[in-house]
């Protein structure tokens, strides 16, 4: 776990999946995100790091318009997905969220069976034609989320009856079941033990072949291990954004430097 090796993966010159320009977020009078510009690359894992309350979750929620549900929240600026403005009046946020999946900071399984939790997304999006296909999706997603072995005998048990870490993995399985193009993960490993963490990180690495993944994490090691690009947020500002290797070995901004070194010790 203390392996501080920075993954030297080839970051191919991917196209931009999501671009954010001059994004501002206000909660009523408080200014949570200040003028953020970010390009999230396709088939890349991007890590958001930063101290608590700096706006990582808030910015993440802008990317699939989950902030629409908060009445006090006002988002300005421009965010595009594959070149299309996601805040355009013609965009149906429901359709957007099918493309941009999300794992929330707090595990929030539906109070339904484990099976239904995973099967719900594919069902409402009409991704399967038969029960057998659905079973297959449920199993493969639970396997990917490193949960299958623990729950395969009790798929009908309520998802809320699982432990915190299991619930978190169930939420991951649920999010990947709809095969999104972008997966937003808000501290997906905060409740997991090292083994499950390693499995989830493996999953994230796997997902990179097909999706673009954005992961918020408080673990510098994790950011270093799984991501190719890292963004450092501080007090609502995007302080520094670049290749993970460069951010961790050679940060340009003193704030990044002190945050990383402070945390790593």
């Amino acid at each position, binding site marked *: 776990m203390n392996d501080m090796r920075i993954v030297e993966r080839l970051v191919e010159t991917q196209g931009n999946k999501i671009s954010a320009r001059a994004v501002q977020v206000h909660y009523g009078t408080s200014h949570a995100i200040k003028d953020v510009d970010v390009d999230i690359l396709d088939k890349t894992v991007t890590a958001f790091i930063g101290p608590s309350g700096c706006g990582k979750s808030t910015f993440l929620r802008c990317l699939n318009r989950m902030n629409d549900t908060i009445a006090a929240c006002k988002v300005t600026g421009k965010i595009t997905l594959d070149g299309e403005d996601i805040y355009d009046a013609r965009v149906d946020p429901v359709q957007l*969220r*099918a493309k941009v*999946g999300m794992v929330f900071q707090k595990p929030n399984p539906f109070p339904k069976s484990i099976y239904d939790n995973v099967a719900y997304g594919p069902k*409402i999006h009409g991704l399967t034609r038969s029960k057998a296909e659905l079973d297959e999706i449920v199993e493969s997603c639970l396997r990917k989320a490193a949960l299958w072995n623990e729950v395969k005998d009790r798929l009908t048990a309520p998802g809320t009856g699982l432990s915190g870490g299991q619930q978190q993995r169930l939420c991951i399985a649920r999010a990947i079941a*709809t095969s999104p193009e972008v997966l937003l993960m808000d501290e997906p490993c905060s409740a997991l033990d090292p083994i499950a963490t390693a499995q989830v990180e493996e999953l994230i690495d796997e997902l990179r072949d097909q999706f673009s993944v954005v992961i918020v994490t408080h673990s510098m090691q994790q950011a270093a291990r799984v991501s190719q690009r890292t963004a450092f947020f501080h007090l609502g500002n995007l302080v520094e954004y670049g290749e993970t290797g460069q951010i961790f070995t050679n940060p340009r901004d003193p704030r990044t430097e002190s945050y990383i070194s402070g945390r790593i010790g």
Partner: protein
Amino acid sequence: MTDTPKSGSIFTQTGLMAKRNASEKRFRFYGLVAVVASLMMLAFILFTIFSAGLSSFRQTTVTFSLELTEAKLDPKGGRDPAKLAKVTTVGYNKLIGTGFAAAIKEHGIEIEGLTDKDAAGFLSDEAAANLRDRVLADPTLIGQTVEINALVMGRIDGFMKGRVTAESAANDSNISAEQLALAKALDDKGLLHLSFNPAFITGTDASDTRPEAAGLGVAILGSAYMMLLVIVLALPVGVAASIYLEEFAPKNKLTDLIEVNISNLAAVPSIVFGILGLAIFINFAGLPQSSSLVGALVLSLMTLPTIIIATRASLKAVPPSIRDAALGVGASKMQTTFHHVLPLAIPGILTGAIIGLARALGETAPLLLIGMVAFVREYPGAPPAGFSDPASALPVQIYQWTQRSDPAFVERASGAIIVLLVFLLVMNTTAILLRRRFERRW
């Protein structure tokens, strides 16, 4: 604080701890006292009602044989139903009167000073009506000698139940000492029976002078019709309105205003809803008076705010993380609401609906205003046409019976209250069972 050591043994309580424990103990005691006090009141109410009302489920009848003389009932012969129906209860009354007098003699009962009028008055007028119904249903009985269980008049019934005594009868012009003596004699011979009386539940209301024949059938049917209609009208509308207001409507001045108004409506006295119903449904829309349809419409209006408030509260109590989760996997607002939020809210909605319905079931004032207080002797027809027939309702029936002069109606009213309580109990139990079922689903 000065004399408590900073780190003492955990076996000895600190002063502050003792104080906290004492206040907790006090609080528990107050709670216990409150619970016991309310239980005692409940027990007292139930005891009063049951001791006064249980006897109404039993009724005194006198058993004797009488000949259904063909010359009186079907003088021309032929058993033509139209002709048989021409003989009114007055005819049957005479028949029963003579039959009863003969039976008294036959059993060797001799009461000094017992007049024919006394003997005839011993029986309820309802006895003749019952016999007539029996004969019309089965004309082959004519000419035979049949055994009948004739209802006795209310005062005699009261005597059998201990309500009427020789002293109270002495001041009562409706019963003579001879009649009481006759009752005693008949009882000694085993001819008077106090037995279960299904007519109290199924029968129709009877006039002021015939408490022994008064039944709850029309009122029960009317109340059942109204509850059915209230469920059908108020529950879907109330739940739909709450879902719209809570999940879909924008939060602005207008919806705030609506919210305040709904809360106010829930506190409006029910009689106001009665006036509203009278003005709108009867005077404006021209719907039939005294019908269960109009009653149900008024009660629905009255119940709606309760259902809306309860439903909104239980929708609000669903954790927002569930909505996030559903929206996050790409469910639409509607799917989120109906697949995830509503199922979680159903137990609360059911509780609110039952509270509303229970209030509607026991409501009297608005029904008085729309004419449901009329004396109804005809059962309302089968639904849906029967919804517009005149009907009574349980609480109104209770109110009416308590207004009547004959003390036998006190017993009837208490009996009706028992029936009303049973109705409520059944409704609440159903709600609890349903709630369990829905809670177990996840």
